[in-house]
């Protein structure tokens, strides 16, 4: 039997994976991909909560979590569009996509 806990542990593991990627990867594209992994971990948690926590008294399941997930995917798509443009401009201007080399905005 797969319970909510299983899904949440999986979601946490995926999230941590993404977080480690964001912190350790130097390539901008890979950092972005890690962020997508974190978003997907959150999506997984939302869907799991919806399935296990939301059934009404008559057993019917309201699709609230799924709706949230659609929002997240839509926002993530828009975010990727912007982020890819930033990455492209970075490469054009600074000739690098290494985040450690892009440290001009400092005190």
């Amino acid at each position, binding site marked *: 039997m797969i319970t909510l806990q299983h899904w949440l542990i999986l979601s946490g593991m995926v999230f941590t994976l993404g*977080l480690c990627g*964001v*912190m*350790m990867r*130097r390539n901008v594209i890979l*950092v972005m991909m890690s962020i997508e992994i974190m978003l997907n971990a959150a999506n997984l948690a939302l869907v799991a909560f919806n399935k296990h926590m939301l059934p009404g008294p008559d057993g019917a399941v309201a699709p609230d979590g799924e709706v949230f997930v659609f929002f997240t995917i839509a926002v993530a798509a828009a975010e990727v569009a912007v982020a890819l443009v930033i990455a492209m401009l970075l490469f054009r201007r600074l000739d690098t996509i290494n*985040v*450690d080399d*892009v*440290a*001009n*905005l*400092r*005190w």
Partner: protein
Amino acid sequence: MTMSDSHAAPSLLPWLILFLPLLSSALIALFAQKRPALAAALAIAAVGSAFGIAASYLPSVLAGKGEWSLHDSFTWLAAGGFSFHYGYLIDGLSLIMLLVVTGVGGLIHVYSIGYLHGDPGKSRFFACLSLFMFSMLGIVLADNFFQIFIHWELVGVSSYLLIGYYWRKPSANEASNKAFLTNRVGDFGFMLGILMLAFATKDLLPAGTGFGDFRAMAAIVSDPAWLAHPAFTVGGRWVLTNEAFLWIAGALTFMGVMGKSAQFPLHVWLPDAMEGPTPVSALIHAATMVAAGVFLLARIFFVYLPSETALSIVAGIGAFTAFFAATIATTQNDIKRILAFSTLSQLGYMVMAMGLRGVDVAMFHLTTHAFFKALLFLGAGSVIHAVHTNDIRQMGGLLRKMPVTGVTFLIGTLALCGVPPLSGFWSKDGILHLSLHPPEYAHSWLITLLPTLTAVLTSYYMFRLVFLTFFGQPRDQHAYDHAHESPFTMVAPMVVLCVLAIVGGQLVGSPATLEAFRAVTRPAGVPEFEPVHADPATIRHALTIFVLGAGAAWLAFGRRLVNPDAIAKLPGVRQLHALFSNRWYVDDLYDWIVRNVQQNVARGCDLFDRWVVIGVFVNGTAWTTRASGALIARYQTGSVRAYTMLFLAGVAALLALAL
């Protein structure tokens, strides 16, 4: 008009008295800056109309025997439980003052046309003069304490503007500042007094009456039951009755009088105010504004009437000022300053008479003094206009060159010295009579001796002035050769004032009309005093005083039988002379206080401001912000991975807190 309808229906006409001069001032400032003739015409038209309107009430007032009055007011400001009114109150007292202010004021307006001939600031002068007339008439017409205070400050402003009329002269600027600041000291007490009086009576005011209304307050204060009632108690043991409260408030209010009417020790501004043009000295600093304090005492006499303590203070300060100023006048050499100290001295007489409950006598002297002192100032202005100096040691023999000025000046001097039958005799002898027979509470050498001595000194210094200016040989031949009689616009007002100085006394001083004058000026509850009768004893008394003073001046400055400079060097006399010519060192004392006390306080405040307010609070805040900013800025490394790390740490910390 019969006694039954003595309170006439309110009318709009008196508002014109008040607001025509304001309108004229505004019109001159807006449209007549470059047209001095138009400016003069506007100002004179406003004053003339005000005089005409005021004069139209004279028959009603005289027929009403002090019962007639005209009153109207509107709510100017209603705030919380208080309503401040703005209105007019025309009764015998204010009508006499109205006629003096607009009548003498109108003549001086005409005189100014000639005196300021060709002066580039003539329009500004007339605008200020009209503003002054508005302010002064507001004091005269006021029906409550707050209106009178507003106009009290407004005359202060117009006086400031006019003293500093020759603004390129540093001494004129200093004099206008001195006048303004000295009056601040007095007005501080005045305001405290007004607030005390208004709050003490506010719960008993009839409905629809403004805060601080004179007539409503007079009715409350005259009630003996109210006087015995405690104003407030402390701890149930220490009780302050309304009577004591009243005299403290009265003494504080008197500070305002001391400032405006230049009574010792707040007199220092008036001699310096002579830096203004001479018509201003005549109008503001001799005839009207400085008399406002005396008028105020008459208007609010109900405050002083129940308390002999307050009356004694008023009488003592008045008597001392009269003597004090007269001694200084004997040693001055500036023609206008001698007249200024003489004004101080005469104002002292009036204030003293108020303190001796002689309200009608004081108002009588105010009226005649306005005539002859304005005349003397206009004469002095005429002389200055001719010889271009204020120093009487540079003059001499001017009677031959300026006969009209000389004769009118001489008549004004005789009137001031109280020679019968000129106007000064009737009013001044009334005051001297009062001081020789004072009420019980004022039996003191200060009251009985000093005024008579002052009268002798008055004759002395005035005739010293006359002999040095108009008689003898010219001491400055160049100035003498260029001296000439002044133009018609200057001479005509002097002649009119001269006629008033001669007959003004009999007009109100003769027993028939004096009764009417007394009836309209004496507030309720003040005992009536003996009118001055022109009997041989009184005349002999007045002439003795005159001959003593004028004779001494004649010996020293007319015939030169004795050398005044040699007398001034005698032991004893020398010290007195130094005391008088240095104005009793009062100005030096104030100078010392400002230099050593006020400056040190100011220095302490400056240090506090510099080190505590600016150093700790202002710069300290800035420094702390900058330092903490510099510290935190170190974390802005530009490394995205470091930010992520910090972000994670922050979220972890928040989670740790929340769980």
